[in-house]
């Protein structure tokens, strides 16, 4: 490189620096927090959920649920003496890199509370981003134990955890008299969490026997290997903790193979598509799930509102997302500010806030004190509340 060129380059750099420092804001040299909401403007809530990818439908349910709450609160006058809520939804695609980009995007936009988080694997790397920005996270769906293991002050889970789901599952097994069980997961973070917990609790309890604990690869069509393994052990119950796509296939293939035991699925498989994919085998399949509007008595009006607003039925995590927004609004109101630290304090202090899953109080590790898991069953191709509850 000739010296002449180098001089030119330095000149260009210098000139550009002067221009940028003098001109636009938002750069490194500009003062003040960039993008922070002005005290009178709307209060922004960020929601990072899957909009694309295989979990996209759930993302839509969550977005609608949250939007419904935002609209209701704004209609009732907003928060902090008349400031409106504003929801900002970004895609996570169940991918860590995409989730981090989106989390940064909502942080940059100046959100005050995060009310998103569906895939645990994608939500995990977003924790430090929100933590550094001191933004409280009310996570409506993701529920891996790993999320709260790090003891971050800003992370709150309002879905039951894998542990709580496992407790409900075990209680139901005992109450319904299933003495042998096969645990099958799809090797994702969420799914593995539940099988690991369930296995641990079953071993500690001693009254149920785990005959098989295995994983499958998501995204395939043929699950004859796991079906064969299950048939060989012939457990009374198969507990599938993965998502509905593979769950449907496995239920169907178990049925074709002549499996006579029962199948139970975890909340990731509770989706209207599961009975369709599973075909004839779907009837009588149990599920561990937090309450959905369909199963909550007295939720008819809420469902009607949802339908009126979005011209669609609510689905999994619509209620949790709805509650996450309401909870965020309540905490902001209690704190009387949009400062992260104040909101976190307010969240920790909440006691008895009414939500779909029951009155809310956080445990010291920021999970629900009671998971609110119930047992659903498929009847006529639809998930309904099972008669027998643990």
């Amino acid at each position, binding site marked *: *490189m000739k010296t002449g*060129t*180098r001089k*030119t*380059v330095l000149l*260009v*750099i210098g000139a*550009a*620096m002067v221009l*940028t*420092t003098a001109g*636009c804001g*938002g*750069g*490194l*040299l*500009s003062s003040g927090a*960039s*993008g922070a909401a002005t005290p009178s403007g709307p209060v922004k809530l960020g929601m990072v959920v899957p909009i*694309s990818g295989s979990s996209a439908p759930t993302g839509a349910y969550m977005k609608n649920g949250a939007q419904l709450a935002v609209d209701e609160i704004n209609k009732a006058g907003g928060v902090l003496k008349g400031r409106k809520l504003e929801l900002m939804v970004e895609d996570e695609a*169940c*991918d*860590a*890199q995409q989730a*981090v*980009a989106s989390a*940064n*995007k909502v*942080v*940059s*936009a100046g959100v005050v509370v995060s009310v998103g988080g569906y895939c*645990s*694997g*994608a939500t*995990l*790397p977003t*924790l*430090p*981003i929100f933590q550094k*920005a001191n933004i409280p996270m009310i996570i409506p769906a993701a529920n*891996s134990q*790993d999320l709260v293991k*790090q003891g971050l002050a800003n992370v709150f889970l309002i879905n039951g955890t894998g542990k709580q789901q496992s407790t409900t599952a075990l209680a139901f097994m005992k109450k319904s008299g299933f003495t042998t069980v096969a645990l099958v997961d799809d*090797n*994702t*973070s969420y*799914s*593995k*969490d539940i099988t690991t917990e369930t296995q641990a609790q079953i071993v500690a309890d001693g009254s149920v026997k785990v005959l098989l604990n295995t*994983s499958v*690869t998501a995204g395939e069509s043929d699950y004859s290997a796991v079906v064969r393994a299950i048939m060989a052990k012939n457990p009374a119950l198969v507990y599938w903790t993965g998502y509905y796509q593979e769950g449907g296939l496995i239920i169907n293939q178990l049925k074709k193979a002549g499996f006579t035991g029962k199948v139970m699925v975890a909340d990731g498989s509770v989706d209207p598509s599961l009975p369709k994919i599973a075909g004839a085998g779907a009837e009588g399949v149990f599920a561990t799930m937090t309450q959905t509007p369909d199963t909550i008595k007295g939720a008819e009006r809420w469902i009607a509102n949802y339908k009126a607003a979005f011209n669609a039925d609510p689905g999994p995590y619509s209620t949790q997302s709805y509650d996450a927004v309401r909870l965020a609004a309540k905490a902001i109101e209690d704190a009387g500010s949009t400062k992260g630290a104040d909101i976190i304090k307010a969240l920790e202090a909440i006691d008895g806030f009414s939500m779909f899953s029951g009155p809310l109080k956080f445990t010291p590790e920021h999970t629900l004190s009671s998971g609110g898991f119930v047992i659903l069953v498929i009847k006529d191709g639809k998930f309904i509340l099972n008669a027998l509850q643990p």
Partner: protein
Amino acid sequence: MSENVDATLAPQRLGPPRSPISRLLESRLIGWVALAAALLAPFVTASPYSLNVMTTAAIFVLLASGLNIVVGYCGLLDLGYIAFMAVGAYTAGIISKSFELPLLFTIPAVLVMTILAGLIIGAPTLRLRSDYLAIVTLGFGEITRITANNLSVTGGPSGIFGIPGLLKIGGLDVENPAVLYYLTVLVVSLFVLASARLGKSRLGRAWRFVREDEDAAEAMGIHTYKVKLLAYIFGAIWGGLGGVLFAAHLSAVSPQSFIFLQSALVLMAVVLGGMGNMRGVVIGALVISLLPELLRDFASNRYLVFGLLLVVVMVFRPQGFWPARGYERERATVDVDPPAVATEQGR
């Protein structure tokens, strides 16, 4: 053959390209301009989001420049390149997390592991025909990801999270996004430069000879197998360091980040940019990583567009949008002195 060769037989269009865009791209200045732009960008916008996007893009440029060594220079189609990044990111993450070390100190181990990975993947497969090689590398890529997903040392499906930052000396906190961005840009530009320089060296020429005609290269004494293995190892090192930056950037590593789609994206950057031409590759990488962020509507259909573009570019411009330039500067005067070694025998 004396000097009376009929020179008019030679085609006329021999000089450097004439269009202003090509001239700009060929200019030696362009590297400095790009670097200046990268260094100045945070002065325009420094929100966590834009820093994140820019850091991701810079890491992507590093990956593309590494894959360019393998695909562009040496002509070996690698469909599982992201596996090297996985090896680097996991090695760095596991070591730094279990020993509470800053990521910087894991680099020697990362180098060892990625070179090993390059040898393990390359040694048995580089004798294969190019299309078999492509599928085998794809298989290795998937094996790497599934293994990371199934093992407990790699954190299983959740992966590793809470990874310490690159370095922390006194007040200089590299976890600060802006500092990390500058560090990334620095490392990436050094490696892009190194890869460009490698391309214009004896080894880089040997890679091209192998790409163009393996038999002729062998006849000239080029150990094609060794040369290909070297391309693989250099590619692996670039990928592994990309992995370290990735781990530092996300502070988490999980198997979902290393799916085939990612390998394909890096390949698209190399192919669309111009195989073998480092400038084109950098531009390709920037376009592929930044365009979806800039154009929201485009983002949802980007893979369709990229896929169609691959076909269109291959059919109409097989060398890529900005192919490696096919000419070089010639000597100014005729050299009459025979080189001293010219009459010696052997090496």
